[in-house]
């Protein structure tokens, strides 16, 4: 039971990070119908920028908790802004000129941009993994039981709390933004009928750019969280996390934001539980097998919308 609880917390943490990345995939797919394969690498860029900012600010675990938290918010802001600038540029340079071209063109261009970002990070920051001492070490004991084999303690670390709380807060914020504001309405209108949106005075290109910026800022949040939680990053983390998050987006129903979050959680939980109870080697097989099963029985994904409309 304790072991289960502990793995559950780990799974939710990992799933939150996947979910944050998956939202970027799903929003971009929703609005222009393409998979931005470079999105995972935007996550990597966000993590790298976080690392650089942390080092530049000279943050260490010895600082007080309040100061650390404040500094991390600053780091987050920097990472979000710069990652957004990267993603905005990628869209402007590599996707927008291909809009209206055949469907595969922007997809190929996206794979190209993925390689560009990876190689850029490798050349600029070196290829070696970058470890770091944990900045935040504290946590809470949720359960403590003494057995013959020794004490069994279920802990939730400060970082895990930060990851989960931040994710929940961002989810709430983004849901409100999409469903209640005129910006969100403009985005949804472009999703449903781009030409009509422009006939109502919506600047479609600007709306698409904003979507890329929003996705990138969430990926940057995920980047910082990933770095804080796992303590090591390299130029290649974007690929694996990107594939997982993309899977999460498809699993949840591509185009649906709650679906992306749910998909992220499911993938994270499967991965963690499979590693815990079966074998670490096959955790990815388990996650992708789950995707296959869901797509066979629910081709629209868990929360995807079936396309039935009166015309």
């Amino acid at each position, binding site marked *: 039971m304790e072991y289960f609880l502990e793995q559950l917390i780990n799974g939710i943490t990992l799933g939150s990070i996947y979910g944050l990345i998956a939202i970027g995939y799903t929003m971009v797919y929703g609005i222009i119908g393409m998979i931005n394969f470079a999105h995972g690498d935007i996550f990597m860029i966000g993590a790298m920028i976080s690392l650089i900012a942390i080092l530049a600010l000279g943050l260490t675990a010895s600082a007080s908790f309040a100061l650390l938290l404040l500094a991390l918010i600053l780091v987050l802001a920097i990472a979000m802004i710069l990652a957004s600038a990267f993603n905005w540029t990628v869209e402007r340079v590599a996707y927008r000129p291909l809009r209206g071209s055949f469907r595969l063109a922007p997809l190929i261009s996206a794979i190209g941009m993925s390689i560009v970002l990876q190689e850029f990070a490798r050349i600029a920051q070196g290829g070696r993994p970058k470890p770091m001492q944990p900045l935040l070490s504290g946590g809470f004991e949720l359960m403590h039981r003494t057995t013959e084999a020794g004490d069994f303690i279920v802990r939730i670390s400060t970082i895990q709390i930060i990851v989960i709380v931040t994710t929940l807060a961002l989810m709430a914020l983004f849901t409100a933004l999409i469903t209640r504001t*005129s910006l969100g*309405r*403009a985005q949804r209108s472009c999703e449903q009928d781009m030409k009509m*949106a422009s*006939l109502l*005075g*919506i600047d479609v290109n600007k709306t698409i750019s904003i979507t890329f910026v929003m996705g990138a800022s969430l990926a940057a949040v995920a980047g910082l969280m990933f770095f804080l939680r796992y303590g090591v990053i390299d130029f290649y983390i974007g690929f694996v996390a990107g594939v997982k998050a993309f899977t999460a987006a498809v699993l949840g129903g591509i185009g649906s934001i709650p679906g992306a979050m749910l998909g992220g959680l499911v993938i994270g939980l499967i991965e963690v539980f499979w590693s815990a109870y079966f074998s670490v080697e096959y955790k990815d097989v388990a996650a992708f097998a789950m995707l296959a099963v869901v797509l066979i029985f629910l081709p629209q994904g868990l929360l995807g919308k079936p396309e039935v409309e009166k015309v």
Partner: protein
Amino acid sequence: MASPLLTIRGVETFYGKIQALKGIDLDVNEGEIVTLIGSNGAGKSTLMMTICGTPRCRTGSIRFGEADITQTPTHEIIRLGIAQSPEGRRIFPRMSVLENLQMGAAVTDPKYFDEDLARAFKTFPILEKRQSQRGGTLSGGEQQMLAIARALMARPRLLLLDEPSLGLAPLIVKQIFEVIRELNAKQGLTVFLVEQNAFHALKLAHRAYVMVNGRITMSGTGSQLLASPEIRAAYLEGGAH
């Protein structure tokens, strides 16, 4: 009725290699209702869309008031004061009726919203009943009303209506044409109306054009065209009435 609001000169539009508009000259003056009639595939809807810059004309010029809008981006043309209720209605299917109307008001000052919404609901009471329903679940007639109401939410100087009578019961058609006449008479709204339902359109309009195969073949006042034997033979008799 002196000053021209919309001036179209020598406009040619292509879809790939196919030429849909073959040199259109057309004027809509401030405060007028002008109608364009013609059979299916004549290029009427293409002209409507070309005015809004999507697709763009290959040659010719389009002026709106003082501005040359031939190369202006679509969303900026709309912001100048043109609203369109397009062919096929194009209601956002996964948005509520209210949200569709909010989209219509995207270019206006939010302070007008409540007033405009009340007017839209007064004009089309069914929309008020359906306001939280998704656009895609409305019947064809309700969608048509929503499309017109959405266009009006933009407070346009020029309203482009593409076949507002399509798929509607005769009673509702009458009602919609009455609304158009009233908006024109009371608020001085300029209307450019594309119709296959030539009889109603010609009765409503101050002036009219006839389009055949991407060319304007006739023009005159509504009553002149109504009286013309060619028009009667081609568009009125044995059909609409």
